């Protein structure tokens, strides 16, 4: 096995086994901090030893065993001081790794613990990326444009709260599951969106590492909760969005609007998979939730080989459905964009203007108004709407796109 092969095996093991190893340690030792540290040490040992010793036949079991030893080492060091309970756990030293069924359950427990509603959404996101996704604190800090020490503190504080307040390491009871799953999905959607429309002047406009991680984690949750419609809906939504990623930024680094994208560059296999998931949900006949409706809207868009083939009345009908379960102004804004294609930009503009009080600080509100005003030939108000949108937009590619549009006004 070449050095590259060993390196790839280590990277693959990290992707596939990290959450499993951490989750198993959490259950065994009842402590996220010990689990995280021991898992990180085990992977460091793998990187050091595998090139010389070769990749073990079962990397997952090797990593779990190594991490268990590391955890016991730490507990042994600490238990020299006081803790009787940890001393007792230490006695179970060389127990074999759990069968994989139970470990899958552990990963689900881990996700629900990291996304507990008693933790702030930004904390859930950070903790999930660290404990389940295996990203380093430095990587997470970079993704959310905060200093590494601040991110370290946020994660440390969260782990301490989980321990002190005794946030349980448990899959919620059936009656609590829908609301708890929606808390998990909100965190994953936030990770995906930060990747898909990254904020900050110094970052790439699309952070593929974050979108890929969000998709990977959502796939994991779907594997664990296959019958949950919203989980499937969110995965479909992410896939159908991710499929357009390469067409979304021009060679010059400018955002490309949906209607102007080169649809030949869309990823057909992601689209096929997304459509399949949307059909699967439709076939159940169950009332769809918000992610399923958003996925269906994206399925309509990705169904059209040419923007002129888009079934806009279907899109509006789906937004009507969405408004009924989520009457927020942002949904109303997105509905208005589809209305412009069916009833004309004047009707859409009237609907958008009604949202002024609620969305005045949101860049997409001004960008939408600017586009509608431009299409209605109202150059001056369009220009000032573009100005406001540019001022509020945080994504470099979007700023470039809006600036060109504004400068092209007659």
């Amino acid at each position, binding site marked *: 096995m070449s050095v590259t092969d060993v390196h790839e095996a280590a990277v693959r093991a990290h992707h596939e086994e990290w959450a499993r190893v951490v989750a198993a340690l959490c259950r065994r030792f009842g402590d996220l901090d010990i689990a995280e540290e021991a898992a990180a040490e085990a992977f460091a040992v793998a990187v050091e030893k595998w090139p010389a010793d070769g990749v073990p036949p079962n990397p997952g079991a090797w990593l779990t065993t190594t991490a268990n030893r590391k955890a016991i080492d730490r507990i042994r060091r600490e238990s020299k001081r006081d803790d009787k309970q940890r001393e007792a756990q230490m006695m179970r030293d060389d127990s074999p790794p759990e069968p994989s069924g139970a470990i899958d359950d552990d990963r689900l427990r881990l996700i629900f613990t990291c996304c*507990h509603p*008693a933790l702030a959404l930004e904390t859930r996101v950070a903790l999930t990326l660290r404990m389940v996704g295996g990203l380093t604190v430095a990587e997470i800090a970079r993704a959310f444009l905060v200093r590494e020490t601040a991110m370290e503190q946020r994660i440390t504080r969260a782990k301490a709260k989980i321990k*002190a*307040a*005794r*946030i*349980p390491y*448990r899959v*919620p009871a059936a009656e*609590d599951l829908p609301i708890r799953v929606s808390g998990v999905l909100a965190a994953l959607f936030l990770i995906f969106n930060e990747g898909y429309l990254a904020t900050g002047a110094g970052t790439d406009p699309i952070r593929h590492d974050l979108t890929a991680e969000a998709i990977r984690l959502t796939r994991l949750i779907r594997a664990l909760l296959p019958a949950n419609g919203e989980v499937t809906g969110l995965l479909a939504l992410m896939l159908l969005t991710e499929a357009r990623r390469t067409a979304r930024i021009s060679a010059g680094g400018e955002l490309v609007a949906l209607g102007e994208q080169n649809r030949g560059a869309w990823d057909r296999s992601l689209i096929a998979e997304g459509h399949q998931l949307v059909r699967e949900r439709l076939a159940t006949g169950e009332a769809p939730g918000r992610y399923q409706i958003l996925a269906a809207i994206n399925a309509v868009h990705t169904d059209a080989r040419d923007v002129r083939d888009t079934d806009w009345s279907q899109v509006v009908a789906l937004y009507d459905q969405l408004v009924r379960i989520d009457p927020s102004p942002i949904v109303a804004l997105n509905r208005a964009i589809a209305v412009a294609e069916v009833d004309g930009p004047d009707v859409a503009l009237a609907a958008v203007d009604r949202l002024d009080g609620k969305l005045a600080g949101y860049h997409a509100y001004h960008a939408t108004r600017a586009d509608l005003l431009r299409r209605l030939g109202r150059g001056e108000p369009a220009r000032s709407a573009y100005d406001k949108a540019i001022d509020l937009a945080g994504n470099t590619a979007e700023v470039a796109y809006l600036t060109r549009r504004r400068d092209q006004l007659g």
Partner: protein
Amino acid sequence: MQYLVSVIDDKSGSATDDEMTAIDAFNDKVQAAGHWVFAGGLNAPSTATVIDNRGEETLFTDGPFLESKEFIAGFWIFEAPDLDVALKLAADGSKACNRRVEVRPFFGE
């Protein structure tokens, strides 16, 4: 494991008759379920006295240690196996007393 559930209010002793009835019913339920440790309503912060006896002389200061618009008007202490159970009890308590509440764990045993 014990949790302190503080009732947040800007007045003290302000519960209406309906709220008192709901609180009594909630308390009965908590006791029957074995979560009850203690509970009580607190008089206004203006009735508090701060004592500092770290030095040579005992110092008394009139009023609460922290002046704020909102304060702890009452509290429950629940016995619960984990935060999920404590949050459920606190949510029912919030409904019963018709106030916001804060859950804070004691140091674990």
